[in-house]
């Protein structure tokens, strides 16, 4: 028997290792690597004439393109297109499309950028003297709530010594970053004034800054709060509205030259196509950052699980998290103690640790770079084990 097997290969590195194991010569590896990984890429709203050209070209290169049956009958209509092929097929398609009119040059550039960013490792980031080597391991962000009314029951209000003790404990337990927030963001909660938010956040930030060395982020969508927090020692901004709520926020971030986490969020839970809409919205937030002069290297993305999404939508985002890699930025995921877990388990927020752990492990398998959690000690352990499986990082922990 020949022991035929289907291999579990999703990355170039894995294919390269298998080819090396077979004894393929280096030139052969270079030629065959782009043929080993198959991708399906979706593009939206292509004019039918352009879509038909794309289909012909992709077929000619050995790939395939699926378009709307109705759209193909009407000369004026538009259609979404599913492009199917190997990296080799896509490279040849892109080269060919660049020679066509109808905006196909733009499509070619967008395809190439999407595939490049999906495949390429991210360059490391250095924040506050700490190097974050994306892809090498999962980083954990500890949540410090200085609200009197946090959904997860962990709000510390104005008790600054308790806030400091919690932050110090989280760092001892392995937190790589601490996120300080002064406004509860649970669905339906009413917002607090800038003055009140500053009153809660600034003393806590000052004190935590003295006590821990890890980067601190300020969880706010208000530019005045962000500016004051950065002056008080915060190192990055975590904006749950992705620069959309306050037109000065992008400028505060740009002027301070700090990283910003852009989260997807929306009013209501209506979507045309969940992942497509989230990706489009995140791309819009990235464009807002660009207008203000925030360098792309200072952007992190968060799909906003639990924000503007129903239960099944939150689960779909988690299951398809790896699709966000096309955006080419580190991905932060927050599922900690959220209501979707409560719906599944039938438990209150302070009894959702296992649910948080399950989603943490799955998020890591789907490419998450940072997990934002309440239970640092436990989730750091989850991340170490998941990293050992997913990223082959076991030696340093043994």
């Amino acid at each position, binding site marked *: 028997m020949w022991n035929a097997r289907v291999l579990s290969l999703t990355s170039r590195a894995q294919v390269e290792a298998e080819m090396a194991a077979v004894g393929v010569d280096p030139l052969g590896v270079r030629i065959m690597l782009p043929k080993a990984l198959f991708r399906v890429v979706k593009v939206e709203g292509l004019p039918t004439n352009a879509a038909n050209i794309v289909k012909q070209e992709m077929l000619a290169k050995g790939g395939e393109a699926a378009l709307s049956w109705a759209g193909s009958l009407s000369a004026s209509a538009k259609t979404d297109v599913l492009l199917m092929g190997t990296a080799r097929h896509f490279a040849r398609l892109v080269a060919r499309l660049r020679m066509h009119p109808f905006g196909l040059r733009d499509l070619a550039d967008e395809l190439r950028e999407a595939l490049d960013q999906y495949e390429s490792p991210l360059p490391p980031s250095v924040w506050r003297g700490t190097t974050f080597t994306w892809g090498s391991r999962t980083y954990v962000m500890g949540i410090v709530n200085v609200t009197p009314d946090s959904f997860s029951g962990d709000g510390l209000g104005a008790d600054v010594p308790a806030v400091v003790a919690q932050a110090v404990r989280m760092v001892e337990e392995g937190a790589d970053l601490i996120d300080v927030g002064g406004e509860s963001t649970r669905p339906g909660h009413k917002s607090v004034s800038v003055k009140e938010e500053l009153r809660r956040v600034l003393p806590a930030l000052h004190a935590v800054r003295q006590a821990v060395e890890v980067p601190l982020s300020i969880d706010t969508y208000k530019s005045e709060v962000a500016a004051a927090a950065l002056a008080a020692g915060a190192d990055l901004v975590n904006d749950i509205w992705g620069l*959309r709520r306050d*037109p000065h926020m992008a400028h505060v971030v740009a002027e301070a030259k700090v990283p910003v986490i852009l989260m997807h969020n929306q009013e209501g839970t209506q979507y045309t196509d969940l992942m497509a809409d989230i990706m489009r919205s995140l791309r819009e937030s990235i*464009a807002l950052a660009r207008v*203000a002069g925030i360098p792309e290297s200072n952007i992190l993305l968060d799909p906003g699980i639990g924000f503007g999404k129903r239960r099944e939508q939150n689960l779909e985002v988690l299951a398809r998290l790896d699709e966000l890699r096309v955006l080419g930025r580190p991905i932060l995921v927050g599922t900690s103690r959220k209501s979707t877990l409560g719906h599944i388990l039938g438990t209150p927020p302070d009894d959702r640790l296992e649910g948080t752990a399950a989603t943490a492990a799955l998020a890591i398998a789907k490419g998450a770079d940072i997990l934002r959690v309440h239970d640092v000690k436990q989730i750091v352990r989850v991340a170490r084990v998941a990293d050992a499986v997913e990223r082959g990082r076991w030696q340093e922990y043994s």
Partner: protein
Amino acid sequence: MARVFLSLGSNVGDRRENLRRAINRLRENVAIDALSSVYDTAPVGLLDQPRFLNLACAGETKLKAHELLIFAKGIERQLGRLPTVPYGPRVIDIDILLYDGVVVHLDDLTIPHPRLRERAFVLAPLAEIAPDAVDPTDGRTIAELWRALPAQDVRPLAEDEGRLADV
């Protein structure tokens, strides 16, 4: 490309120079093809402050409406690093009046601009360069809106000083 109409105002420092610098900065992302005269206008809301100089401009831009808002706020911040209060004194104020005939209702952006229909310091310069532009909320033209407005203390500067140099 989107066609946009903007309103600019200044009542602090060298007001004419502020307008000139703001227009030049806007050109980084807006191909401005129409510029109104400069109008001398009385403050509205907070009355105890200097008079404003206002103008309107029109042009084409690749920026989305929200991107244009953030771009404009950046110019305001860079030209006038002063804390501002609503209707208070400002080095430069840039408002998006109309954007490609669309209606936008976001938390931080409303198009057409909510003051479009009620403020002569906005409508007078706009009516000069775009009388036939349409308010997409009710289909009325800028000329109609302007005629419907009660008289307000807004006067175009004389021809020789009513144009900005070098813009």
